[in-house]
């Protein structure tokens, strides 16, 4: 297991270097002068020169990267051009609503997807199965911003059951907090629920055709015992992988969801930074998101190796 972790960590190093290089070059992809783009034409030349110097644009590109990377190693992701606040502080302020949303979305999607996936697989080619697969297809094809607006229309505008654009921290006020996060979490969780339902259904169907399940049936075990004690445990392994891989979709979905529901999270921060042409902030937040994504993929790889010894030994 230690060998697997070491190998994965070593393999991550060049990727990390290239990711930082890519994020660093992002600002240089801006057509024309990035400082002009950020400050506009109305600012005076002195302010532009100061910003150029602050961002190190007066230095050659390799020197700029070396300086930027050395700051990065010390935890300095740069400063927002608009607010002047360090990027890391902006992200730290916004991370809690995003994490609360992600956890809530994950809870909702798993509590829908796991029973539905099991029911679909154990009732193959019945109305229940059709319902499950239709739900999965709907979830995959439905754009989350459209779903968000439909939910707002039905539960906010028509029925007035749930708030549509006010964030309350569930830790400070659990009831109103959960109410404020319900629609965003359903929006964010649907796509994940769809993918998990599909994966669990197909992997459980595969398991139910295995020899050990036939043996269990021959021994006279009930269908419930076969599913719960034997097939489900093995069928959940691909679900773990899918959950890890879907982390990226969850972050992408959070950008849209937080934008539509005006939640003060990291996703909203990216969109605001893009609109404000605050490129250092865009760079910093995108880099942090990528690092989070790499860490989650690494964790999934290691978990998978821990769950399935074959992976451990073949690595």
């Amino acid at each position, binding site marked *: 297991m230690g060998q697997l972790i070491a190998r994965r960590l070593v393999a991550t190093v060049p990727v990390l270097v290239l990711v930082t290089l890519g994020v660093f070059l992002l600002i240089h992809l801006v057509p024309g002068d990035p400082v002009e783009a950020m400050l506009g034409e109305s600012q005076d030349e002195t302010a532009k020169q100061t910003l150029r110097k602050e961002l190190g644009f007066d230095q050659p590109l390799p020197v700029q990267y070396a300086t930027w990377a050395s700051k990065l190693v010390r935890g300095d992701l740069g400063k927002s051009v608009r607010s002047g606040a360090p990027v890391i502080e902006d992200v730290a302020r916004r991370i809690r609503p995003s994490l609360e949303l992600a956890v809530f979305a994950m809870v909702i999607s798993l509590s829908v997807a796991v029973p539905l996936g099991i029911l679909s697989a154990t009732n193959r080619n019945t109305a229940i199965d059709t319902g499950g697969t239709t739900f999965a297809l709907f979830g995959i094809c439905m754009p989350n911003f459209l779903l968000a*607006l439909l939910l707002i229309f039905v539960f906010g505008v028509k029925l007035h059951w749930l708030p549509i654009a006010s964030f309350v921290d569930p830790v400070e006020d659990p009831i109103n907090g959960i109410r404020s996060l319900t629609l965003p979490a359903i929006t964010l969780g649907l796509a994940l629920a769809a993918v998990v339902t599909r994966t669990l259904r197909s992997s459980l169907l595969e398991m139910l055709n295995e020899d050990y399940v036939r043996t269990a049936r021959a021994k006279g075990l009930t269908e419930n015992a076969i599913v719960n004690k034997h097939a489900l445990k093995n069928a959940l392994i691909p679900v773990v992988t899918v959950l890890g891989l879907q982390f990226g979709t969850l972050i992408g979905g959070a950008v849209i969801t937080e934008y539509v529901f005006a939640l003060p999270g990291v996703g909203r921060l990216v969109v605001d930074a*893009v609109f404000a042409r605050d490129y250092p902030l865009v760079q910093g937040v995108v880099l942090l998101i990528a690092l989070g994504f790499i860490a989650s993929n690494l964790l999934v790889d290691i978990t998978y190796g821990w769950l399935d010894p074959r992976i451990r030994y073949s690595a």
Partner: protein
Amino acid sequence: MHATAQARTFPVPAAGPQVKSRRWLVLRRAASARMAIVGMIVLVGAVGVAVFAPFVAPYDPLKQDLANLLAPPSASHVLGTDNVGRDILARVIWGARVSLIAGAGSVAIAALAGCLLGLLAGYWRGPVDDLVMRIMDAVLSFPALVLALALGAVLGAGLGSVLIALGVVYAPTFARLMRGQVLTIRMREYVQAARLLGAPDWRILQRHVLPNAATPIVVQASLSVAFAILAEASLSFLGLGVRPPEPSWGGMINAGRGYLQQAPWIVFGPGAALFVTVLGLNFVGDAVRDALDPRS
């Protein structure tokens, strides 16, 4: 010279009458799925509407009618009008062009760039392979929409930026697929024979490797178009797609969200078009995968 000439006539396995019947089998399999037929009808309809938009659209999509602001669906405006009196149906029809161009165009860019890189990496291996694949891994380390958003932010709004951003986002998938295929195919006897006969690398790649590596690329491309259309709509929704007043489904939905209470049809028209198109493309993509998958 002689060896090259021989290599030129070296038979490609994917040719001849057997292949024709296999292609026919694949087409029959794809068409036999009911959902595939539904998907094809949707796809043909969307493409038809996009191509013939100037003839099919009942009004000019940019023409404002101040006497008909936020008009509900009626006989004269089937899907209603928006906040400046533009006909929603006309804008949905013209928006189909943007969505389909963005979907097909970005996947074409991704497939072309990804396949080329995968081909280089898989055929020449060594440092080229290491460099290309690490770059692809780095691109895959970003959540797709976040990367597209960041690229859209620096490149600016517009269809060209969307095509480039989504092309970059989807290219690594094609590169990985192509590399995997090439790694297997380059070891086959017919490729080694062609090499021994003196065929140059470009001819081996063009005549022997590419035709045999194409199947999973076609499957991936057919599955990716739907996701690319969704991604373009997401970027347009965030204001990084086609610039208003040009119609795009995502942009129209974003513009309509401020009028959800008074005029929900502004959102529902383009929303339904987007959902149905993506659903249809998913059906087609699934059918293509099932038809070409040797295990099915």
